[in-house]
């Protein structure tokens, strides 16, 4: 991209007093400004302070280039990033935030925009160019390294924020804030695909050594220098972190396969009964279709497992949520989220005279089905149906438990008291496990499942401690759930019959051909 002449002249005039050695930089900054204004300014702001028009609906907020506090660096804590660090963030984006990667920009455009970003802060012009740290070399992974890393996890007090199981549910988690005083989550270490600095062992090791400036995440260098941990132990810790879960988001499979339980259905959501049952992952997004929208939801996905025995169907749904709402320990967090986030017209929860929220909303989830098995491909509207076509809901919240309801849109839910659906949920170390069970067919109003026929299913979730109530939820579009039919004899009989018939037909043909030849 070439700088337009007008902008170039204006900038040249601005930089007229600069020494001649910087002339090349000025051209680059002028070219960078054009790229920046076109693609970056609406979030990061015209003056680079992270205060663009859309910033208030984003948590974490866009980077403030004037502060020059960069999280993703290869340089020491408190230092400026290298140009390569800034390029890394632009090229790859910051997963887990609203910052995408920018494959549409050329190398030259990225170089120019880096020069322009740095011009927002006076720090880059002072002093020498920042140098990357020496990260040493990885002594290697394996079970022993992971075990040593698990010990280092406790020595380094990682669990205080990230929790014992790494789900960002540590005791300090509700108090965390960034340099602006805005609430910030401790990373959920089980979801490496939303690590904003990358998910490889090297990436995690780098983040630990550099710290994430502007956040409560410190650098491990002090602990290494004072002998609390050795350099190798930090590498081992990185291997331990990598063992928390997969690097990539699990692939989306559209159909939840509900197998037939051998020897009875599980009686609860306990780990033993559900071990070995295939789990299906579904990503959730903020509800951004109807006002008031949720631009920064807590629950970003859930796992579903299912079993049935021909009479009943049982589902286990698991999702990560660092808070077991309602929980007064999260009052501060709830207040800060309410204050920091653009609630899109939703009424903020009022505070009492002591500054505590007047309402502590529960956590909640719902599973959505059509009210009746659909004919053809038609289905109710994915967002809880509408006036014409209702949906059938299994609802759960942390105050009233499991129930069923009829939905005719996001704000029209009518409980179905007669429905036999039952279940319970437990919260442990940042994860809810919901168990629900119901007969496959019911006499009361509601959906009858049909074995072997895919039934549409969709999900919604709320984190009460993040002031998620009403329409401010996490949602999915339609997927399917399929109850495995009983082993059918046709699967065996039909191919056998086809083989026998073909074989007999072939024999007759050959016999006739041979007879005719002999007759001749």
């Amino acid at each position, binding site marked *: 991209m070439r700088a337009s002449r007008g902008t170039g002249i204006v900038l040249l005039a601005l930089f007229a007093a600069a020494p001649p050695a910087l002339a090349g930089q000025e051209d680059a900054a002028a070219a960078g400004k054009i790229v920046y204004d076109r693609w970056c300014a609406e979030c990061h702001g015209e003056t680079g302070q992270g205060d663009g*028009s859309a910033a208030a609906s984003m948590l974490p907020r866009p980077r403030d280039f004037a502060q020059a506090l960069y999280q993703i660096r290869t340089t020491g804590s408190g230092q400026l990033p290298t140009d390569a660090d800034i390029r890394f963030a632009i090229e790859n984006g910051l997963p887990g935030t609203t910052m995408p990667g920018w494959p549409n920009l050329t190398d030259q455009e990225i170089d120019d925009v880096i020069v322009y970003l740095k011009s927002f802060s006076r720090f880059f012009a002072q002093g020498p160019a920042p140098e990357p740290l020496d990260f040493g070399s990885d002594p290697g992974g394996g079970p022993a390294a992971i075990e040593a890393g698990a010990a280092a996890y406790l020595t380094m007090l990682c669990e205080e924020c990230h929790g014992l199981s790494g789900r960002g549910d540590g005791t300090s988690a509700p108090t965390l804030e960034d340099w602006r005083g805005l609430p910030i989550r401790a990373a959920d270490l089980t979801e490496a695909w939303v690590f904003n600095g990358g998910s490889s062992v090297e990436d995690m090791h780098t983040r630990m050594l550099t710290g994430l400036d502007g956040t409560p995440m410190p650098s491990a260098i002090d602990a290494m220098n004072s002998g609390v941990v050795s350099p190798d132990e930090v590498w081992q810790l990185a291997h331990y972190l990598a063992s928390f879960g997969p690097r990539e988001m699990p692939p989306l499979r559209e159909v939840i396969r509900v197998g037939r339980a051998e020897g009875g259905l599980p009686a609860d959501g306990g780990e033993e009964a559900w071990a070995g049952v295939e789990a299906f992952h579904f*990503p959730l997004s903020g509800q951004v279709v109807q006002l008031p929208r949720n631009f920064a939801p807590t629950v970003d996905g859930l796992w579903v497992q299912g079993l049935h025995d021909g009479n009943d169907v049982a589902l286990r749904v698991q999702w990560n949520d660092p808070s077991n709402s309602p929980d007064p320990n999260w009052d501060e967090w709830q207040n800060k989220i309410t204050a920091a986030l653009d609630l899109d017209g939703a009424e903020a929860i009022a505070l009492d005279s002591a500054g505590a929220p007047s309402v502590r909303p529960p956590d909640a989830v719902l599973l959505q089905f059509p009210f009746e098995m659909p004919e053809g491909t*038609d289905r109710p509207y994915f967002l809880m149906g509408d006036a014409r076509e209702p949906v059938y809901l299994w609802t759960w919240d942390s105050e009233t438990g499991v129930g069923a309801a009829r939905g005719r849109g996001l704000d029209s839910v009518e409980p179905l008291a007669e429905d036999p659906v039952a279940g319970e949920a437990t919260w442990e170390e940042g994860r809810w496990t919901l168990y629900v069970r119901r007969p496959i067919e019911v006499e009361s109003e509601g959906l009858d499942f049909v074995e072997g026929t895919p039934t549409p299913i969709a999900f919604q979730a709320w984190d009460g401690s993040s002031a998620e109530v009403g329409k401010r939820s996490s949602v999915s579009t339609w997927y399917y759930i399929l109850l495995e039919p009983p082993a059918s004899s046709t699967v065996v009989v039909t*191919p056998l019959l*086809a083989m026998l018939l073909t074989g007999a037909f072939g024999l007759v043909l050959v016999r006739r051909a041979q007879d005719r030849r002999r007759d001749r």
Partner: protein
Amino acid sequence: MKRYLSHPFWQGAIVVVASYVAFEYVIGYVLPVIGVASAPVPSSVIVEYMLIVLVGVLLYMSADEERWQRFREPIRETMVQPDRRTLRGILMVAFPVLIGWLAYERVKPSYAAPATLRAVHPAPPNQLTFRGETIELTGLENPLREEGSMEEHLAVGKRIYVRNCVPCHGDLLDGQGHYAQAFNPVPADFTSSGNLPQLTESYVFWRIVKGGPGLPREGTPWDSAMPAWETILEQDEIWATILYLYDQTGFPPRTWEEEGGHE
């Protein structure tokens, strides 16, 4: 080799095998590799195509008496000649097994999602109502092109887009916003030559105003997460956003002169 190529039976066999390879593998897997948009052919469609190919080959072979005799010869030979006994035995087993396998493929339990046919750009209505106000779509142009400052319109459009559209359609307008992966169907990719340049601005206006719920049945309105933006935005804000979409992607809108309907 030449002997086989000139023999009707082997010609027919080659045509059948080559057709199968084309339907099963070339269309679905080779074309995408060389950059042609394509998708695997459903097995039921392949069966249908193969029947047509088979009937075509038989018709051609039997159209000429001499060719028909030559075509049948290897088959007959295999059925009657004593020295072909081994081949005969193998075929007598292999053929029923193949048929049995095909039958199993058809009756075995399937755990695939049902196929849904979805029209990506369904035909637009002639008019729509915006919060009760009737607007004729036929011949409708973007009113902002004729009034006010284009620079200001684009600034408004960009602000509206980044605040409201980015979560799904993305900063790069490529349909890969940070929520895109949670939605099925995926959000529209405005950088694709199959979208904006194929559509008039009035069509885009209709899609934005009425969103997913306003789609006709063939557009599967129950699946789309596109909001009906008349509930959130003003008309001018929508027209400004449309200006921004075309400006930022560099595509010109389709004009009414070349418009022959969207079907």
